[in-house]
């Protein structure tokens, strides 16, 4: 029997963008307010899980052709690259640096290399969560 999911699918099409924007806000606000890479990655994975719930595995693989194991690997590469990059400047492993830059629209902004490490955490959390859910969550 085919069921009609039109309400769930329409609500999902609107809500997924709000959840992804909220997860990016949580990710970028992690330095000064609650948030960070972990909860941002979990919320992005939550948006993708909502897509999986409203549609199916094949449709989501069509719109986002991503292998999440590779996402995990890229995240680990980001983290280890940020940590090892400190060695190039003759300071201990995992030393972070920051400076103030004047960006075109945002004005005076402090850019911190901890954001690159946080990007690694974000990608690893998204990759691991989606790998687990796609592996054990699918029926049959």
């Amino acid at each position, binding site marked *: 029997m085919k069921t009609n999911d039109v309400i*769930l699918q329409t609500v999902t099409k609107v809500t997924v963008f709000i959840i992804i924007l909220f997860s990016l806000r949580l990710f970028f606000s992690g330095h000064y307010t609650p948030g960070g890479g972990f909860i941002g990655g979990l*919320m992005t994975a*939550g948006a993708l899980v909502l897509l999986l719930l409203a*549609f*199916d*595995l094949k*449709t989501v693989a069509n719109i986002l052709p991503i292998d999440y194991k590779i996402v995990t690997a890229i995240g680990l590469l980001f983290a280890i690259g940020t940590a090892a990059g400190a060695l190039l400047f003759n300071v201990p492993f995992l030393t972070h640096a920051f400076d103030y830059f004047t960006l075109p629209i945002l004005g005076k902004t402090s850019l911190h290399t901890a954001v690159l490490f946080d990007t690694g955490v974000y990608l690893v959390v998204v990759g691991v969560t989606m790998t687990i859910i796609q592996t054990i969550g*699918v*029926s049959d």
Partner: protein
Amino acid sequence: MLEIIIRITLICVSLSMLGLIYRVIKGPTTPDRVVALDALGVNLIAIVALVSMLIDSDAFLEVILLLGILAFIGTVSFSKFLEKGAIIERDRNR
């Protein structure tokens, strides 16, 4: 004055959560329990908002939106499990 009102509201919300917990435990069918858990999530959002007013902090505002999203996703997956027996399908058009 506002603090007294917030405390009275907290007590009322806690009492309604107790009623919902009774429905979760006693509820004859599974959909009763799912609806009660969804309403528990909404009451939890109210408690977080009231407590963040009480301690005069804006550090918990993300938690409110987070709980709303998580309650929605959890309720949707529970209802899909009750309706179809499968939470994530491989190909729905087959």
